[in-house]
């Protein structure tokens, strides 16, 4: 699992790549939180396009980042999750705190 983080006009973008599970969640958490702290963005975009697997550890990861963003009054958007990962997201009701959007690139 790798993450590429950069700032764009729309906000802070974290592009996740590979499999998200409990094993790699802590590392992702630390990297994204550090970028949030440094940039204090209004919007955090978690790009799931290249994520090949995610279990409920990924839901914990999104919830945790939502809490971080709340301290800066910011929002979280989940971008382009593959179908199966979207099913885990739907099951969790994560949409109540973070919008899922699909955009063409």
């Amino acid at each position, binding site marked *: 699992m790798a993450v590429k983080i950069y700032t764009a006009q729309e906000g802070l973008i974290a592009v996740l790549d590979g499999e998200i*599970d*409990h094993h790699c969640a802590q590392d992702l958490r630390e990297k994204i939180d550090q970028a949030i702290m440094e940039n204090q963005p209004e919007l955090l975009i978690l790009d799931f396009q290249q994520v090949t697997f995610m*279990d409920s*550890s990924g*839901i914990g990861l999104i919830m945790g980042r939502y809490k971080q963003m709340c301290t800066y009054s910011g929002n979280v958007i989940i971008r382009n999750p593959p179908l*199966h990962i979207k099913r885990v997201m739907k099951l969790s009701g994560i949409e109540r705190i973070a919008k899922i959007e699909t955009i063409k690139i």
Partner: protein
Amino acid sequence: MNTRNQIKISFPAISINERVSRAVVSAFLVQVDPTVEELADIRTAVSEAVTNSIVHGYRKSEGNVDLQIKILENREVYIRIKDRGCGIEDIKKAMEPLYTTAPEEERAGLGFAVMQSFMDKLHVRSKVGEGTTVIMRKKLGDNQCQTK
């Protein structure tokens, strides 16, 4: 029900093995040629159960997780994940969505909900101080390409 094929592996409860267990499931199930969706469902459910054993069953202690996968008649997949960790005091409560005993680790409390939703059957046996066994089953759809 007759078992057509099976595999048993045992591995230490360290988090890298969450991924290893998913890879074993994928490799073993190639013989029944599941759909992408069926395989993703099973991999996710196994990942949840193995993570539970590692995060909750053994917490900071050491031990092994046993994974057994069986292919039964009629394309039914049987999976058993067993630990000899701390056990679950109140299984009903543990299975409630969003209930977790490890919020500091950002556990969402959705493990059992995912297993229940992605598999056909889920059975949990647990005894405090002795460990937890999770048994799951899923029937795969008919596959046209399968050789008779």
